[in-house]
């Protein structure tokens, strides 16, 4: 009985296990420590964004501007570091920048009730082009040497990025389940009017979720930037799709109100592994995107089948 509540996570995990097994058979070197840590590092920022995206989708909204926000935060982190802001202060600065961009989305969507898909589409274009105009396409280079503070500098420092992402995941998991505000996210996502009648204020719940989304995007941008010697001005292209796909594959209902971060973790891992797995299996990696698309469709179809099966069992 208890296990059946996790059926969506279980089916995603089974799919992931099948993928790992297939790759393991085709190419055992896939499981080398270097490859696995590379995988984890590359996907940790995506996971952070997907955590925020899970909450945005749970509350019944969507945010397609995260890729552009990510780029703004990345470049801002580079500039701040170059202009002499001490490295330990970078994190609060970037969190604040991300949260401000999220707050702007939250204001328009939560407080003014504008549709999130259009608002964030506008912000996607706005931030991306504002950045292009400001940087004129130039990458941020000549970063201070200590910028790679827990990045390139230390061998094990890199894994700290993964640890931070996992800690954030566990923290938000706990909060979604155990805090009043977490319960409110589910309630607003299922039926905002019913939540309002129960004394919850959907506008502030939605606003807060977008602020968190922005802050997590900022954190992801910083953790990604510190791994490299320069910051590209076109960072985060297509990030929104990766994050939304991870959430959906993880079993969160796109209509809101149902889902868990555990599923998002599995979804992010599954989608993040495919590209590398293809290379190891000797398949042309150009297939990566097509296979990711197929997995998203399969997840949606499986979701529907599970629902129908449940309905039949109820009757």
């Amino acid at each position, binding site marked *: *009985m208890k296990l059946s*509540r996790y059926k969506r996570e279980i089916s995603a995990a089974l799919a992931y296990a099948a993928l790992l097994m297939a790759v393991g058979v085709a190419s055992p070197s896939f499981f080398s420590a270097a490859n696995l840590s590379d995988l984890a590092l590359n996907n940790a920022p995506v996971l952070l964004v997907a955590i925020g995206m899970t909450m945005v989708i749970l509350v019944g909204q969507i945010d397609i501007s995260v890729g552009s926000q990510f780029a703004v935060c990345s470049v801002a982190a580079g500039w701040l570091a170059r202009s002499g802001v001490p490295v330990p202060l970078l994190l609060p600065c970037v969190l604040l920048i991300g949260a401000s961009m999220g707050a702007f989305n939250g204001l328009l969507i939560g407080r003014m009730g504008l549709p999130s898909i259009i608002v964030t589409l506008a912000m996607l274009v706005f931030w991306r082009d504002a950045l292009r105009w400001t940087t004129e396409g130039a990458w941020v280079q000549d970063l201070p040497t200590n910028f790679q503070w827990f990045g390139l500098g230390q061998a094990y420092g890199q894994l700290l990025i993964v640890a931070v992402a996992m800690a954030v995941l566990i923290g938000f998991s706990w909060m979604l389940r*155990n*805090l*009043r505000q977490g*319960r*409110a996210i*589910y*309630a607003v996502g*299922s*039926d905002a*009017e*019913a*939540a*309002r*009648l*129960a*004394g*919850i*204020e959907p506008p502030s719940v939605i606003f807060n979720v977008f602020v968190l989304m922005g802050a997590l995007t900022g954190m992801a941008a910083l953790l990604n930037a510190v791994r490299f010697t320069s910051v590209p001005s076109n960072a985060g292209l297509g990030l929104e799709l990766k994050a939304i796909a991870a959430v959906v594959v993880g079993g969160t209902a796109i209509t809101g*109100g*149902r889902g868990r971060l555990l599923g998002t973790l599995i979804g992010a891992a599954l989608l993040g592994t495919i590209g590398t797995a293809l290379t190891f299996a000797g398949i042309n990696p150009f297939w990566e995107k097509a296979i990711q698309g197929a997995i998203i469709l399969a997840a949606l179809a499986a979701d529907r089948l599970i629902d129908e099966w449940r309905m*039949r*069992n*109820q*009757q």
Partner: protein
Amino acid sequence: MPRLKHGLRMTDSPLLEAIDITKSYAGVRALSNATFELRAGEVHALIGENGAGKSTFIKIITGAVEADSGEIRLLGEPLADNSPRVSKALGIAAIYQQPALFRELSVAENIAIGLEQVESGIRIDWSERRSRAVDLLAQVGAKIDPDTEAGELTMPQQQLVEIARALGANARVLILDEPTASLSEEDTRKLFHLIRELRARGVGMIYISHRLEEMPMIADRVTVLRDGHTIDTRRMIDVDRQQLIRMMVGRELSAVFPQRQVETGEVVLELLGLGCVAAGIKDLSLSVRAGEIVGLAGLVGAGRTELARTIFGLTPADSGEILLRGEPVKISSPAQAIARGIAYLPEDRRRHGVVMELPISANITLASLDGLSRFGALDFRREREIAAQYTERLGIKTPAIYAPVSTLSGGNQQKVALSRWLMTQPSLLILDEPTQGIDIGAKWEIHALMTELTSQGVAILLISSELPEILGMSDRIAVMCGGTIAGILDRAEADQQKILALALTPALGEVDSTIRP
């Protein structure tokens, strides 16, 4: 089939027969050997508690689901391979409680859908479409401009459009599923008038309703379903309300409404000249005492729900005063109302009373999460205990308290919604149509619970469109008309005529001048 002529009365040959219909869902019997017969020019009431099998029966007739065994015959011919398309083509139409019109389309277009054959390349004849709509609307006695968008019509008007559409499709079997559930007394009377006219034209009608008091007014025969079995079919003039209830529940209910002897206490809620432009409320004064049930009667559109929403902070008042225990308060959001001890059970249970996806336990605690937190985190053990406690106290039938509310029946969902408000320990409980569309057993339990609450000193404001419920439960009855109170009646002096007369007070509301009490 030969067209039935004007003025034809109930015939003896059956129009529609259902013989030994059996249907199971995943091993659970919804119908077992149900039998039913409808004649042309007959209004045949179909009654039974929720879960008795009425909906399944209707779905089988309209072809939405397939029976496991048994046979449906239309004019003696077995209905093979029934589907919504087939039944519609044969002249079977159903009208449900919630009108199913396309809100963005005009009335004429709504009527045209399903009547016109769509062939590519052929131009739509707008003038013909319009004139047919005018003709059909006239037949149902509706004064509706066919160019209006359906979404702008009132609920009763939408119902008329649906009936007009059914007439356009030459319906000879018309199924009316709870057609009066959301209608005021006046609109109900108009609908009955129309039903009688259709009957005279030879249409056979299956009439489903929880309102037993309507039956003698409209039905020729009545069939009672219980647990999927046909209990009996009788002529309406041969049975009374008590007998019907006995047949439906299979046991005698001691009284339809629980007896109540409660000393009322201090004034909990007092409204002084309350007004809200957005809600259409004006100059409204009313008081409710601890332990008292004040019934709010009135026609649909009189402003009863709007008043409840104003008190609860959904549409905050912009003039006048709200006093809680003598203290003037300003309530501008539901959160503030809840903090002040006000609870509001909304009218539309399916959409807003409960959160369908959330478990029963989370639904019950949703309005009291602050009190449930310990060191900032939710106390799951206490939540389980509380949920179990309410599930037992209100008799919520469920296998598990963490099952989503969507898995429960309507009556049980309503009990979950009520539990949520009981947990906030309100001093004022506003109930908006608390027993609409739920079965008699659950209804009785909710009435008993209201009685219990008043004995604990809760003040209750009861909104109901069912006059017997208002009369049976209230200590005082406030009748609304045109956004304000038209008059207040004591329990002893109140009767249906007096309430209706007040509800139709012409000076107060913009009531159609042709309507007379």
